[in-house]
């Protein structure tokens, strides 16, 4: 029997990120966590960047994050996005950083933000962030963050 790999219908043609995008369809932001050292990492790899261990679990992120940097893009880049819009790097409470968009009232660098989703026509929804509301401002325990 031939192994044709995972079904990537409707996903980016990258088998290694399929678990991330399948979870995104359910509006869950998932990260890899190392079974050996407990560190989180993003994007997914077949080994832990911190300790090289190959045993990694997919874990749902809390959705809390802090803005690390941002820019307002004032030129057209992709058809789906009409400038101006905000691209940012956020540091998730679990430790990893990701590039994203900030939507709604514009947060400043250092502000707390929380996860929401932007639907797309042909691909899974994208995790994006908005200014955190009351009660969302406190990061979770930093234990195990990396």
């Amino acid at each position, binding site marked *: 029997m031939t192994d044709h790999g995972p079904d990537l219908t409707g996903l*980016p*043609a*990258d088998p290694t*990120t399929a678990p991330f995008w399948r979870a995104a369809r359910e509006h869950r932001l998932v990260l890899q966590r190392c079974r050996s050292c407990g560190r989180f990492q993003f*994007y997914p790899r077949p080994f832990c960047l911190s300790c090289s261990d190959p045993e990694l679990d997919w874990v749902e992120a809390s959705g809390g994050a802090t803005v*690390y*940097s*941002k*820019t*307002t*893009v*004032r*030129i*057209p*880049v*992709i058809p*789906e*996005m009409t*400038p101006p*819009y905000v*691209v*940012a*790097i956020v540091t998730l409470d679990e430790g*990893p*950083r*990701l*590039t*994203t*968009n900030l939507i709604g009232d514009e947060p400043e*660098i*250092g502000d707390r933000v929380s996860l929401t989703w932007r639907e*797309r026509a042909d*691909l899974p929804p*994208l995790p*994006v962030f908005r200014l955190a509301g009351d009660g969302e401002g406190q990061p979770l325990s930093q234990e195990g963050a990396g």
Partner: protein
Amino acid sequence: MKLRPAYIAGVAETPLGEVWDHSELSMAAVASREALAEAGLTFADVDALFTNYMGEEGTVQLGEYLGVMPRYADSTDLGGAAFEAFVHHAVAAIHAGRCEVALIAYASRQRTRRSRKMTRESDNSSLSAQFELSYGLPGPLGHYAMIAARHMHQFGTTSEQLAEIAVAARSWAAKNPKAWARDPITTADVVESRLICDPLHRLDVCLVTDGGGALVVTTAERARDAAKRAVRILGAGESQTHWGIAQMPDLTVTAAAVSGREAFGMAGITAADVDVLEPYDSFTITVLLALEDLGFCGKGEGGAFVEGGRLAPGGALPALTSGGGLSYNHPGAFGLLLLVEAVRQLRGEAGERQVPGAEVAVAHGVGGLMSTASTVVLGND
């Protein structure tokens, strides 16, 4: 073991600006012939070839065009930093006895071809497409903009301070007849120019021009018939940090921290010994971070450091003396032209923009998405 010193024995620019009467290959050939002539050599002497961004398979098409079948070939892809890395690799190859005459060449017609793109990805499977481009992040502009924004947040750096770098480049360009943009500008002109990706304005961003160049790395023995004085390669180094901008460990620390340490260590110098600096200026922030990471000032001090025209003609640290990628020429990969200018400064042939008594020069390339850095230290014997 005493290593044979290596030299840059010939340099040349290709036609610059808007080039309608050449192909990229013919531009590179014209410059290569001129650089070899300066070195007292011909294409028949070349046994090592270095290029990239000249068509598929790196050195192969240029080699055929020039009639060169090298015994050492290198198409390292470090973007704008590739060319200082080529010098690094050529020195290592000469030290290892693998070549004696290394030709480094490059040309681009990105302006007349209108080939410059805001995005590089064509399919949705790359990590960049999945996790950056889908958010509308323009590469490389958006990456450098977020680096600048973080530096401002962390250290209080201002747009006016970044503008000082663009003004310095333009004031040098005014002294360079080959520079593309020579009209004087002020810091107010820069900060009042159109915002493209906050906090970067139109005048914080380099030119898009045609251009390129060539240079010859060889030994003292092979350069004995050189028409002009050969310049000694004192040190070289390179490094890289990231591709995805969220993977850069610290947005305020670049690969120059390693490439500079390696190059300055090999040369046995510190920043205080440098008479003229040619830092890659794809964006104003690129220069600011190079100044910090190469040790010209402390981390976070770059903004205050560039104030008062320190990099401009008459300033304490002459830098961007050709006018840089911001005002002289930026052919997509600018690193080779940094080396050409550094050599001309050390030979004392830079005309109105000559830095008096320049004995030690540094060319510092930066490439990709602030991903790569390579540093070369040059000096007069």
